[in-house]
C-alpha cells in the first residue's frame, strides 16, 4: 500500500517556540514519524535551544499510545503553568518552559500546512535603485575631517601600528 500523502493527525506533532511576551510563534518544528523527540542545548537533540537556561539534555517527549508524554531530564527543570514537572501527559496547546525563565514552547498536534504571514504588498521596489552616494558631498565631508590635526595624528599612529604587525605601541 502506498504511504499516505499526509501523515495522520495523531502522528504529526508540532513544537512551537514562543515569543514569551506575546505567545506568537517564532519558530516551529514538525515531527511526523517520531516516537521520541529530544530537546536540549546539545547539537544532537531534535530541538536545539542554546539558551543558558537549557540543559544539554533538557527534556524528552515520548509517544505512548496516542499521547505524548514529557519527561524532564535536565537539571534546570521544566515548568508547566509555573510548576516544575518531571513527567506530564501533554494536551494539545500545552505550553511548557525550559528553565525558570528560559524559552517557552507549545506542544500541538496539527495537520495544517505552514503559511506565510507577511504580505508582500506595499513594498517599494524602487528603493534599492534610489540608494546612491553623492560623491562630491562625500569628498567634501571626508576632506573636512581629514584635514583635522587629530585625524593626521591618528593616521600616523595607525600607520605605525599596521607596520609593527598588530600590537599598538604604548602611547605616551
Amino acid at each position: 500500500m502506498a504511504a499516505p500523502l499526509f501523515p495522520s493527525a495523531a502522528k504529526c506533532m508540532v513544537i512551537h517556540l514562543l515569543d514569551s511576551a506575546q505567545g506568537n510563534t517564532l519558530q516551529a518544528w514538525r515531527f511526523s514519524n517520531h516516537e521520541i523527540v529530544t530537546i536540549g542545548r546539545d547539537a544532537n537533540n531534535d530541538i536545539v535551544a542554546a539558551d543558558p537556561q537549557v540543559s544539554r539534555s533538557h527534556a524528552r517527549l515520548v509517544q505512548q499510545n496516542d499521547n505524548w508524554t514529557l519527561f524532564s531530564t535536565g537539571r534546570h527543570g521544566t515548568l508547566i503553568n509555573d510548576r516544575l514537572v518531571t513527567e506530564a501527559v501533554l494536551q494539545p496547546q500545552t505550553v511548557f518552559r525550559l528553565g525558570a525563565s528560559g524559552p517557552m514552547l507549545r506542544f500541538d498536534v496539527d495537520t495544517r500546512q505552514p503559511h506565510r504571514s507577511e504580505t508582500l504588498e506595499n513594498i517599494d521596489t524602487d528603493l534599492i535603485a534610489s540608494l546612491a552616494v553623492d560623491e562630491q558631498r562625500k569628498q567634501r565631508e571626508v576632506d573636512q575631517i581629514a584635514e583635522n590635526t587629530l585625524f593626521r595624528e591618528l593616521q600616523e599612529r595607525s600607520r605605525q601600528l599596521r607596520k609593527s604587525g598588530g600590537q599598538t605601541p604604548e602611547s605616551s
Partner: protein
Amino acid sequence: MAKIISTHSFRGGTGKSNTTANVAVLVARAGHRVGVIDTDIQSPGIHVIFQLAESRVERALNDYLWGKCSIDKAAYDVTEASIGDVDPDADRPRLFLIPSSIDVGEIGRILKKGYDVGKLNDGFQRLVTDLRLDYLFIDTHPGVNEETLLSIAISDKLLLVMRPDSQDFQGTAVTAELARRLEIPEMYLVINKVPPGMDTAQLRERVEATYQAEVVAILPMNYEIARVASSGIFVNRYPEHPMTLALKQVADRVMS
C-alpha cells in the same frame, strides 16, 4: 595576538549594539576570551542586552577615564549570564563587559569636560593584556567623532552597520572612506532592518559595488528582537533562526 573589532554606524539605531553583543557571544562560545567595551558614553546601552544589572556596576569606563580606577576594575565577567554552564575556573570561554556609566550627571560631566582620548587608547591596550583577551569588541556612539576615529585607527577589523535607506547610504560612504585613509586592514558591511520582500541579492550587489567591501550579513527587520534584547541574547534563545545563522557568518569573519 588579540584582534580588535569595532562596530560603527553613521546614524543611530542601526543595530550596532545588538550586532556587537550577539557576535561577541558567538565568538566567545567558540572558545575564546572576549571583551566588549561600550564607548557610547553619551547613550550607553549594550549592558541592557547583556542583562548586566545596573546595581552591580560599581565602576564604569567613566571612572577609568577620570583616573579613579584601573580599567580592569570596570570589567564585569558576564560569562555565566551570556554563555552559561561554564566552569567558573575555566580560562575559556570568558566574556567581559566594560560598561559606560548610565548616571545622567556623569554623562553630562564627561561631555562637558571631555577626556583624554589617549587614555581611552591606553585602556583598550590594558584590557587586552590584563584580561588576556583574544578579541576586543568596541561598541560606539553613532557618527564620526574622536572615539570613532581612534577605534578605527587601532582596529584590525571594522563592522559598518547600515540600514537600506538613502541617509545611511550616504553617511556610511563617508565613514568607509575615512576608515580607508586610516588603513583599516579589513572592513565589512552589515545591512540591518531589511524590510520583508526586498530583493537581498540586488541589495548586496548594490552595496558591495558602492563601498568596494564585502557584505557579511543581511539581517531582516525582526519585530521580536526588541523584546528579546531585554531578556537575553538573541542567538542563545533562537539558535536556528535565520538571523542567528546570519550573525554566525559575521562571527566567522571576525575569527578568520
